[in-house]
């Protein structure tokens, strides 16, 4: 993946609009957060291969990281995005990583189901 290029990501988001797509959305602080810090607790949310259609996708810059929102008949958004890639399967992968390369949030869009 490479650092977000806002203009390019916006173009890619536009290309997936108004057609059925599959979404992968996750965020996590890891399975060991509480193990290493008893004051913390593990949090995460995960959805893979939800089929949705969005009418508008928007990327917004915020203090060096990015938020991406998809307007459906409801809403989908991810915060803390830092990197992106259009992979060989024409899937738009977006993710937020910390300084040690650990994934903290991901939002991915694909016309075909993500591999299980």
């Amino acid at each position: 993946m490479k650092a977000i290029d806002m203009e390019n990501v916006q173009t890619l988001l536009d290309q997936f609009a108004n057609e059925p797509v599959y979404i992968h959305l996750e965020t996590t602080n890891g399975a060991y957060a509480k193990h290493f810090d008893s004051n913390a607790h593990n949090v995460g949310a995960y959805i893979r291969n939800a089929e949705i259609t969005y009418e508008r996708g928007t990327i917004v810059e915020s203090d060096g990281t990015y938020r991406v929102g998809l307007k459906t008949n409801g809403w989908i958004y991810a915060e803390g995005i830092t990197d992106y890639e259009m992979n060989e399967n024409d899937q738009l992968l977006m993710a937020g990583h910390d300084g040690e390369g650990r994934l903290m949030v991901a939002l991915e869009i694909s016309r075909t189901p993500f591999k299980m």
Partner: protein
Amino acid sequence: MVDFAKHEQVVIIYPHPDDESFGTSGTILNFRDAGVPVKYLCGTLGEMGRNMGTPFFANRETLPEIRKQELIDACNVLDMDLVMLGYRDKTLEFESKYEVAEDLKQRIEAADATLVITFYPPYAVHPDHNAMGAAAFEAVRQMDQDKRPEVWATAISNDREANLGEPDIVLDTESVFDRKLAAIKSHKSQAEGMLRKMQESSNFTGEYESALQRLRYETFYKVDVDQVDS
């Protein structure tokens, strides 16, 4: 202390590529050196791992294949058979414990296992660890008494000794530690962070020495599956 050669077949049951190398590879190597076959039933491919590297070597979609290859490499270092069970990382606790247990039972019986090594629920921190261990305990519980293998379980939670007491088996892995470290390093995506932290720590005395200090001893509890709740 442990008579490795008295066993005929060991079956390791853990959910993630690298669980075997960090916690149990010294034990596995001792069994293999004693001529005992070891089979690893690995639950998932660690698809939800978070380490993508600096610089990136993986993303969410490429990580499973990378970790699969790392697992194969580690099993080659450890000279053990590998079976990938095909469950999905972080979802094992949502599967039917009894279906997973039935699958494990058939594999344990087909292998004629005399020893099963798994995690000790609920003292294994990660939800997949606890779920895999619980299914493995259940699998053995479903077996005829006279066919049951011995069960050793790995506990890693901070409260393990308060609840379980001292482990029954404490194995010093120093004599095989060069190969244990090689197995761990096969899991590049998982070992990179630990190795970097080691190098940055104030008491770093070299990779081998620092790793030995942290990972020298492997501990297990002997479990009678009829005497535990999980």
